[in-house]
């Protein structure tokens, strides 16, 4: 590598790191972004893991923030190859006995969802109509919260209280303020009476950033994960890795120096100031202004900085930061001859065209038991999954006429099982899922499967460096949200080490393809470093 000195070095080339790098370069800084893996984009990961030509998004799939994501428009990512499809039926739940499916439609199709819910409960249809209408109305305001960094906090200040924002949200929706203190399950149960609808909402909640269904203090997640987000999901044409391709292109065009396969061994300090990094091969790169870490919290402080350089407070909070158990996933991938055709399609054929298909549950309690297993370090008895077959809409993701099923199992933390036990899961679980799925969609036979693959939480941890396989890079529980994420003293994107900023998913608003952690970090840095506010855009108030 020729150059060794930059204004800013960004560690980690996931979407937050790339976002940070692109904005800072636009602000006029010389920026170098380093990625440990050979490929960019972190969880914007698409790979032919089953058979040639079958593209599987085994990490991120549902792009739910693109319509509000500042970097998406600021860098004109659609023109750089990030093209999207917006499937009408966003989520669907078929049943083993061929009961009518529960379907959840796009934000602009509230009536269709209400009509579908009415099959099971007119009351639930009414509730949905009311909540979703408000959600669409309040969406810009709620989303703005994601793209705003929490206030700076230091020991002695009044502790930030995420509940205040959550209570306000409940009031906005005309709900009792106490709901903010309830669990997601309690909220769903209070608002919806149909067991079938509850089942779908439970499952949607756990996979879309809601912490454990039964933890109190999570009423906000009911609003966010069950009401606000379903309906926003966009598909990236060609796979989510295309969003990465667009961001990489944007970075190159902004003049960012990009180095993949360049793992950082430590962050170099002079006194209490971060002045550069050292790579595993011994190369030293100097940062005149700042080092930004867009990797996990513990990797940053325990591995790259070293706990000796931390205050007692920071060391305690970093070491006790929680990864999992609420967002730990295993990914299933199958190359198929044809997509599932569900028994429930006889009532409404659109269930076969639901983007997110929740398969394997007969009732809401099944979903609860499924989640509880993961929390108790057990593999769920019921091998159910949430799956998607992107090739139904996007022919480029599979060979001609074939289909790429990908999906998520909700699994225990990586450390809950031994490597041999995970291997056992890898060898057996997909076959169990397939047998179960066949009871819901009779064409899901062994003959329909060309090849399959299972990515365990241990793989997620090792490959993506998501500790415990937690795709949120840290539990999204009340104690690790907004001003408390990752902990109060670091929530404004820095700690006591001068010149070191944090831009990864351990920051507010957490995991998911929001580009917000990077964007918020840029906001803070522009102010601290006296840079032009390149993030500002007319017509956008966040």
């Amino acid at each position, binding site marked *: *590598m*020729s150059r060794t000195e930059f204004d800013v070095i960004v560690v980690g080339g996931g979407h937050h790191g790339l976002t940070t790098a692109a904005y800072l370069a636009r602000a006029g800084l010389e920026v170098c972004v380093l990625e440990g*893996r*050979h*490929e*960019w984009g972190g969880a914007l990961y*698409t*790979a*032919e*893991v089953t*058979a*040639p*030509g079958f*593209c599987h998004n085994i990490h991120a799939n549902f792009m739910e923030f693109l319509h509000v994501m500042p970097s998406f428009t600021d860098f*004109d990512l659609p*023109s*750089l*190859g990030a093209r999207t499809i917006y499937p009408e039926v966003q989520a669907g739940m078929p049943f083993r006995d061929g009961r009518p499916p529960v379907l959840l439609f796009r934000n602009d199709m509230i009536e269709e969802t209400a009509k579908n819910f009415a099959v099971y409960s007119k009351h639930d249809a009414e509730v949905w109509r009311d909540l979703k209408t408000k959600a669409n109305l309040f969406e810009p305001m709620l989303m703005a919260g994601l793209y705003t960094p929490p206030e700076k906090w230091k020991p002695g200040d009044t502790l930030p209280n995420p509940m205040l924002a959550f209570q306000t949200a409940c009031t906005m929706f005309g709900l009792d303020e106490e709901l903010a203190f309830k669990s997601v399950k309690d909220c769903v149960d209070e608002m919806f009476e149909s067991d079938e609808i509850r089942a779908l909402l439970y499952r949607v909640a756990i996979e879309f950033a809601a912490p454990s269904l039964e933890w109190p203090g999570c009423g906000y997640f009911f609003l966010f994960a069950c009401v606000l987000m379903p309906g926003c999901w966009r598909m990236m*044409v*060609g*796979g989510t*890795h*295309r969003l990465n*391709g667009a961001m*990489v*292109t944007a970075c*190159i*065009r902004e003049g960012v120096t*990009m*180095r*993949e*396969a*360049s*793992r950082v061994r430590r962050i170099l300090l002079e006194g209490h100031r971060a002045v550069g990094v050292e790579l*595993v*091969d011994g190369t030293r790169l100097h940062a005149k202004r700042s080092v930004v870490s867009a990797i996990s919290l513990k990797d940053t402080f325990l591995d790259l900085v070293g706990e000796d350089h931390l205050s007692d407070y920071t060391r305690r909070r970093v070491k006790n930061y929680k990864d999992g158990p609420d967002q730990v996933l295993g990914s299933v991938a199958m190359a198929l001859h044809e997509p599932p055709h569900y028994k429930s399609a006889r009532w409404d054929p659109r269930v076969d065209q639901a983007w997110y298909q929740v398969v394997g549950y007969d009732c809401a309690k099944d979903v609860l038991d499924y989640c509880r297993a993961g929390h108790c370090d057990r593999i769920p008895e019921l091998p159910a999954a949430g799956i998607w077959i992107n090739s139904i809409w996007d*022919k*480029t993701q599979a*060979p001609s006429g074939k289909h790429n099923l990908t999906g998520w199992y909700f699994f225990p933390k990586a450390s809950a099982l031994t490597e041999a036990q995970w291997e056992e899961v890898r060898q057996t679980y997909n076959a169990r899922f397939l047998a179960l799925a066949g009871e819901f969609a009779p064409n899901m036979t062994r003959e329909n499967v060309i090849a399959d693959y299972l990515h365990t939480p241990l*793989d997620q941890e*090792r*490959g*993506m460096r998501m500790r415990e396989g937690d795709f949120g890079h840290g539990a999204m529980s009340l104690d690790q949200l907004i001003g408390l994420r990752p902990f109060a003293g670091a929530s404004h994107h820095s700690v006591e080490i001068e010149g070191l900023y944090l831009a990864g998913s351990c920051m507010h608003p957490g995991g998911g393809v929001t580009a917000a952690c990077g964007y918020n970090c840029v906001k803070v840095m522009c102010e601290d470093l006296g840079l032009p506010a390149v993030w500002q855009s007319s017509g956008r108030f966040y």
Partner: protein
Amino acid sequence: MAMLSDGFDAIVIGAGHNGMALAAYLAKSGLSVAVLERRTEEGGGLCTEEVTEPNFLHNLHSNYHSLVGICPVYDDLALHDNGVEYVHPAVQMGSIFSDGSALTIHTDMEKTAASFARFSRKDADTWLRLFAEVSGYLDLMVRTLMYAPPITLRDITRALASWGVEDKSEFLTARLRSMSVADFLDRHFENDRIKAMLAFHAAICAYQPHVPGLAVTYPVLLGKITNWQLCKGGSHRLAHALMRVIVKAGGRVFPQVPVEKIVVEGGRAVGVMTPDGFVRARRLVASSLDVNQTFQSLLEPGAVPARTLEEVAGVQYQDASLFNVHLAMNGLPRYRAAAFDPDIDRAWILNLGFESLADFEDEFASVRAGRLPAVPRLNAAVNSLYDPTDAPPGMATGLLRVFAPFALADGGAEAWSREARAYGERAVERWLGAMVDGGAGLVRRWITETPLEISQKMINYRYGDWMVGRIHPKSLLENRPTQELAQYRTPIPGLYLCGASQHPHGYITFAPGYNALTVIAEDLGLEKWWAQV
């Protein structure tokens, strides 16, 4: 920002290294350029994936790059400044023989000679003379033979004669044009194993040792025997660097935008059809695909002269593909043969199974008959020896390759799905059998990649042919892919060929792309800012 629908000056079909290099030169020459790629990743054969386990980087196709420092593209495009790093393994290659002896080829030729001398003093001396002689004209040969549009074999012979090469050279003669690599080796060397080692080098470059006529370019091949380099962090990094050069120069790469048709208006190529619609090419379309796709699938039959189509239909592909096993391992292999030659443990690429020239004859005869040799003869590469970052700390990534038929005699290409696991097991067993303690505990996991899968993933590699056209005198130089198409131009004005179907051939040479550039620059009157070879 340019959208696809705005059109471009130049459209390159296929984002392999040849297409991307051409696009980079054109973009740096001021043209607006788009590279359209069918697959999810750019790079073509520069394909690195974690196919066994996370953090184990497997080069699925291109693994050895032998033209670093020779090929002008690296400097012209400043690829090193754009993030490519190479490692030059000190022990380039080795052979382990059934009696426990071993041969090693080093970047240090004296060490190679010392290894050869243990088998034959005479051959060691011959080798030193041969290598010294070849080194003398390697640059000239590479430039005239690779980085220039093809000249005819007759011209090559004439040039050799006019330079008086026969008088000056011990090894270069006009007779080479009718000799095979095996003939050449028989003529100059006496030891079977040394001949096997040198023939192995040719074979893994797709020069089958018994094909008559291939001896002509064998000296060039031998001259590069010490220049096999490893792209640190996986071959795919080279693709990243190319993409950065293209984008910095204002060009664009669009993965997953498959070209469905090349559009011809008034006899001229004017653009391409994609699933997103028509994309205009104001000055040229360059296809880096195999000629069957270009002429039979992408062009309307009426747009191509019948004679061209007929000749394209007759283009021959290699009769030997590869069967690959990719392994994730707990450490580096330790061979029993290290007792004979400790350097064998450091050999990047290993021959395990070819012990004489007759073994190659037997191997390729089996392959041509659609049979798998009962005991696989291996080409084993452990990149982690020289790039430990391609596996988790202390662990290693391995690659076994076996020459294999595309279609099996029993059941055809589809039968690979039935045979793959068992044949993979035999390959792994053979490798472990050469190790201390049978390589106990070494292997974590492995997966196979059959010729059929290779052809499905990289559809350019028809019949699993990674050279995109056979290596045979009738398919090289001015005959590659056909006489009419050999000079990178096509009968359709505005349409050029720039991929491995063209002279010289596949492999990470950049030469087809570079030579197409030379022709395009002439036609378009581009100012040649790049170094002239």
